[in-house]
């Protein structure tokens, strides 16, 4: 046995008061009285003279007992009260559904989403996260449940399970990290109401460059029943594949820029005018390319104020190969279309944020995606890091009967929820 450990064990088990000899080894209680003239020098001397305790006896201080090995558990709730004159186009699954699917005017309350998160280290090789969600009180969903490696060599990381694809920027984000109460239109229009997520695997690589460059390759088996408009039209044995690149630059002490690029390919659902196409039919080939940027201006500290400004924009361009309608067998031409959004969010005072977003679909137009535009504005206060109240207004543009709506969100987070990536 290491003599130091032996000594420590003996000292710990010795029931008699410590001998005068062992007294100097204990750092003096600074709290007893404020230090005077030579006390500081003496204390410094003692720190230098004392042998370090064996490292086995040291551990990060933390809560002892039953909580020790439990995962971090959190609950995040997004409750909404609001109304709209007609059902908004391309509602995402975690958008508030104020009319339980009904088409017309609506006024009501909904629990937009309840998220239960479990996050933990698995062992020295993996971490694991599971996020279960109940969107609009419509049953439990596995939003994400995956394990990721922490120690593969050469900058690689492997992630496997159910997870959100790194395609674009907003797709990877959970509802509570978004600045608006409705996801951008391109989410539901191109990636499906649930976004591009499903059972899959991702291999990513952090390039050994002086700046940040991360490349990722992902494969997903997207279930047939998901209303994916670009992918998910193949059997489970024909997965969709995604490749993404992300890079980041610090442009001075206050300005930073993150850029992303996405290329994805797979099979689109079979064109089906009757809705009775058998699920095993394989749809036409499809691919999607996109770019995203996140430009943020924020001072390194709050001395001169709390203002910051962030611009976020994404564009998706999609191609679906020519095919034939499953029911009528009429030829369906190739579809080429695109969509984008840009949003500007500012922190205007401590705890107060305001933002605008412009959504544009049909850039270019196709038979599947027609020109549509929407303008949204939001204003929010966050009483603390763990709660916020947000008022959001949206209005369709350039339509004969424009959609419009107003909603008030209360979001709160309880428990231990891991920090989010940039």
């Amino acid at each position: 046995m290491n003599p130091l450990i032996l000594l420590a064990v003996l000292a710990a088990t010795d029931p008699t008061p410590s001998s005068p000899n062992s007294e100097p080894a204990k750092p003096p209680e600074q709290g007893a009285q404020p230090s005077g003239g030579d006390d500081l020098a003496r204390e410094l001397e003692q720190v230098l003279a004392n042998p370090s305790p064996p490292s086995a006896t040291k551990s990060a201080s933390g809560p002892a007992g039953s909580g020790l090995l439990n995962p971090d558990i959190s609950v995040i709730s997004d409750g909404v009260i609001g109304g709209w004159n007609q059902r908004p186009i391309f509602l995402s699954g975690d958008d508030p559904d104020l009319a339980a699917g009904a088409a017309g005017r609506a006024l009501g309350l909904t629990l937009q989403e309840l998220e239960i998160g479990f996050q933990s280290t698995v062992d020295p090789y993996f971490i694991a996260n599971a996020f279960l969600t109940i969107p609009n009180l419509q049953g439990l969903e596995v939003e994400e449940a995956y394990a990721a490696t922490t120690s593969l060599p050469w900058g690689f990381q492997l992630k496997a399970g159910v997870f959100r694809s790194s395609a674009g920027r907003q797709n990877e984000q959970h509802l509570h990290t978004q600045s608006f109460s409705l996801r951008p239109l391109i989410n539901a229009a191109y990636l499906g109401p649930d976004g591009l997520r499903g059972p899959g695997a991702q291999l990513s690589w952090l390039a050994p460059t002086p700046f940040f460059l991360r490349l990722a390759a992902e494969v997903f088996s997207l279930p047939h029943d998901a209303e994916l408009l670009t992918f998910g039209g193949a059997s489970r044995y024909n997965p969709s594949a995604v490749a993404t690149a992300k890079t980041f630059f610090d442009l001075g002490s206050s300005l930073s820029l993150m850029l992303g690029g996405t290329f994805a390919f797979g099979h689109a659902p079979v064109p089906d005018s009757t809705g009775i196409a058998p699920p095993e039919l394989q749809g036409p080939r499809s691919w999607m390319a996109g770019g995203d940027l996140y430009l943020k201006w924020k001072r390194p500290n709050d001395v001169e104020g709390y203002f910051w400004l962030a611009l976020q924009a994404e564009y998706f361009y999609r191609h679906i190969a020519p095919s034939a309608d499953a029911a009528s067998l009429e030829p369906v031409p190739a579809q080429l279309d695109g969509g984008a959004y840009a949003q500007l969010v500012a922190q205007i005072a401590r705890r107060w944020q305001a933002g605008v977003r412009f959504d544009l679909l049909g850039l270019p137009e196709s038979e599947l995606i027609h020109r549509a535009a929407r303008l949204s504005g939001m204003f929010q206060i966050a009483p603390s890091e763990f709660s916020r109240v947000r008022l959001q207004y949206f209005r369709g543009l350039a339509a004969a009967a424009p959609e419009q709506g107003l909603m008030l969100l209360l979001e709160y987070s309880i428990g231990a929820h891991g920090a989010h990536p940039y």
Partner: protein
Amino acid sequence: MAPKTTLLLSLLLASTAQAAPVKVATSIETFASLARAVGGDRVEVQSLSRGYQDPHFVDAKPNLLVVLSQTDLLVFAGLDLEIGWLPPLVTNSRNERIQPGQRGSLDASTAIDVMEVPTGAVSRAQGDIHPRGNPHYWITPVNALKVAKEIADRLKQLDPAGAASYDANLQAFGAQLKARAPAWSEKAKSLKGLKVVSYHKSFGYLARWLGLDEVGYVEDKPGIPPDPKHLVELIEHSKAEGVKLVMVESFYNRSIAQSVADKAGAKLAVIPSNVGATPAIADYPQLIDAILDALLKAAS
């Protein structure tokens, strides 16, 4: 291959292996300064945040991943100080050496006696509190030396060939602090018993060292802006107690602290709490000098 060339090659390999510095990353600049002091030319040190930033709220910018992916030793304050930004960076650094529990992961709070560990129920109704105790411990020379010693110990484990060098550097750093101790203690004397109000609960360790009497906090609940009622009470209380100083860390907005100081008839003392808080504070002794000078100037 000629024997001479082989010898030359092996010598070259040996010398490059020895010359490869231990790469140290720290969450705050003060720890970077301590690591440089004890590591000398055997280490290459980089801080993830700047001394003029709030260490609670550093943006987890992806370029920090680039640093962490190549780090041999990560030194952080722990006690949940960096919980809002550091853990996902460590996880995604793909660097096995610095994962929690590895030798390259050093929670510096294990070296010190932690103050203000909450007892009883811990709730966020009390604000954004640190449930494991006060993490602002590096602004006393004794704690800084303890952390420096811990860093030296860890460097010795990671780079045994440099053990003698790390020991010598630590002794030299300790001697440097000891040499300054009488002057610091002299300055501290005139601050003893001074009644102060702190903006954030950042100065517990400093107040204990200097014998300052902290009679209140501008941030009633840590991390949450104070409500006016609390400020009115604090100002009245400060007047009654004869508070001389309102202390605020240099990275905070000063408007509220300034108005409390003005109304309570006290002076505002802007305290640099990290090496690098201003360009003039380049190492640890300069940080202590700057803190004491800021206090003395405001108290005079």
